[in-house]
């Protein structure tokens, strides 16, 4: 009896995680497709790890880990932005410095048993409240990303052209970084930083191989993110007896990689 109850609870947790991850996966894929410049891809790539000190502080003070992660990401982004105004260093170097700082601080303050979940996630850790907030946050991210999409794309074609058309590129870059921060903060409980980086980078790289225009590119990115999550969860459910709860992030990332490999076949159209 007790065994069945635990099993049922695990099932509920599994579905709550699935719903959260589907929304985060879709919105991460969509936002990731805005990462069209090299500078931006580097930022998106490592940004998720800037959440780690916040995760540590969240655990230490008994707060929600996602809130800690969000705080840490916003602080990290503002620090990078401030340093870029104060120094002549490239954005890439600054992101690198803040990335290393965050990793170091994060590893120091996150207890060892929690570190694994912070990096790789935990399929059973998401509460119903977390899921509801994650779904709302994902929808908000999708809406804002859709609004800034053409402007970001114009900046990618030519920054001067964007600026001369009245598009304040630095403002949009900052909004974009906050969108990534939101996705990472609410996705980190399910799949850790690995899952969130993977969902930001892989779907858009895959979609790029297959798309002829912006519309296809953005939709493919979101759909690939979402489908990778569903495949990841399906695979996990088949092997759940043999897998640790933290395996989910990695499995979803691998599902994304399979899509990427397939997309390479389309590349030389």
């Amino acid at each position, binding site marked *: 009896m007790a065994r069945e109850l635990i099993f049922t609870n695990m099932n509920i947790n599994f579905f709550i995680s699935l719903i959260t991850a589907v929304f985060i996966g879709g919105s991460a894929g969509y936002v990731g497709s805005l990462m069209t410049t090299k500078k931006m891809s580097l930022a998106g790539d490592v940004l998720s790890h800037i959440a780690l000190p916040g995760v540590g502080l969240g655990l230490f003070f008994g707060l929600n880990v996602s809130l800690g992660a969000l705080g840490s990401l916003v602080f990290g982004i503002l620090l990078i932005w401030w340093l870029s105004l104060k120094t002549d260093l490239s954005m890439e170097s600054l992101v690198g410095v803040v990335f290393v700082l965050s990793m170091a601080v994060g590893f120091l303050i996150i207890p060892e048993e929690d570190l694994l979940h912070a990096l790789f996630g935990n399929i059973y850790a998401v509460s119903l409240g977390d899921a509801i907030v994650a779904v709302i946050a994902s929808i908000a991210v999708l809406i804002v990303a859709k609004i800034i999409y053409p*402007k970001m794309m114009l900046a*990618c*074609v*030519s920054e*001067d052209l964007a600026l*001369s058309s009245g598009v304040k590129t630095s403002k949009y870059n900052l909004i974009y970084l906050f969108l990534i921060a939101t996705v990472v903060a609410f996705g980190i409980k399910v799949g850790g930083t690995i899952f969130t980086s993977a969902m930001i980078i892989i779907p858009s790289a895959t979609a790029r191989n297959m798309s*002829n*225009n*912006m*519309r296809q590119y953005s939709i493919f990115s979101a759909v690939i993110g979402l489908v990778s999550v569903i495949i990841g969860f399906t695979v996990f459910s088949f092997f759940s007896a043999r897998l640790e709860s933290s395996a989910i992030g990695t499995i979803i990332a691998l599902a994304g990689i399979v899509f990427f490999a397939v997309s390479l076949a389309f590349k030389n159209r």
Partner: protein
Amino acid sequence: MDFQDDQNLTENKEEKPQEQQENILEVRNLTVSFGEENVIDNLNFNLKKGENVAIMGPNGAGKTVLLKALLGLLPYSGGIKWSKDAKISYVPQKILPEKNLPLSVKEFFEMKSIKQEQIKEVLFSVGITDDNFIKKRMGAVSPGQLQRVLIAWGLVGNPNVLLFDEPTAGIDIGGEETIFNLLNKIEKERNISIVLVTHDMSVVYGFADSVLCLNKKLICHGSPSEAFSADGLRKLYGEGVNFYKHEH
């Protein structure tokens, strides 16, 4: 541009009606500095409505910087005063979208919120007549076509000033038509002031009402033939430079 003598304008250009004397742009004591260095030093000039100006000067003379300052993209000291009705558009020197950038020509134009028919019209006005062209990826458009696309993009919204950075920079725009013909056509159809940075003296002779020679400071301004007197060129590019004008 204020010039004392406009008798020497080349013959293949129509005289502007005298009533169009209102300034569309006034530049006073314009200085742009990068760190300690003044890239543009105390520049003064005016631009009249409908006037076409060529900005010339050696590499590093501050030509592109001047255009960017006029667009308000760079911090500067001094005054740049556009008239209230000025609608300014910019055509950048060259853009190199990545080959696999997933953006179609149509989507590029839709960023300016215009409809497909208007896109086709404006592309037609720069000589792109292929109906399927708008479906192409930006990265798949040839450099010459891209130059036309950028001009067309700049013309959306009917600007009355077009700032144009090196339209001929190493680009064959294709066919018999030259960039000079295209500019003339645009200028005639739309009564637009074109400010262009160029090295191409034939464009300057055939197209510009006036020339602004820049080498950080204003070296000369006036009609093309004044500016290209041996004296003017020596001032701009240094000793030993001459421009051999073909006499037909």
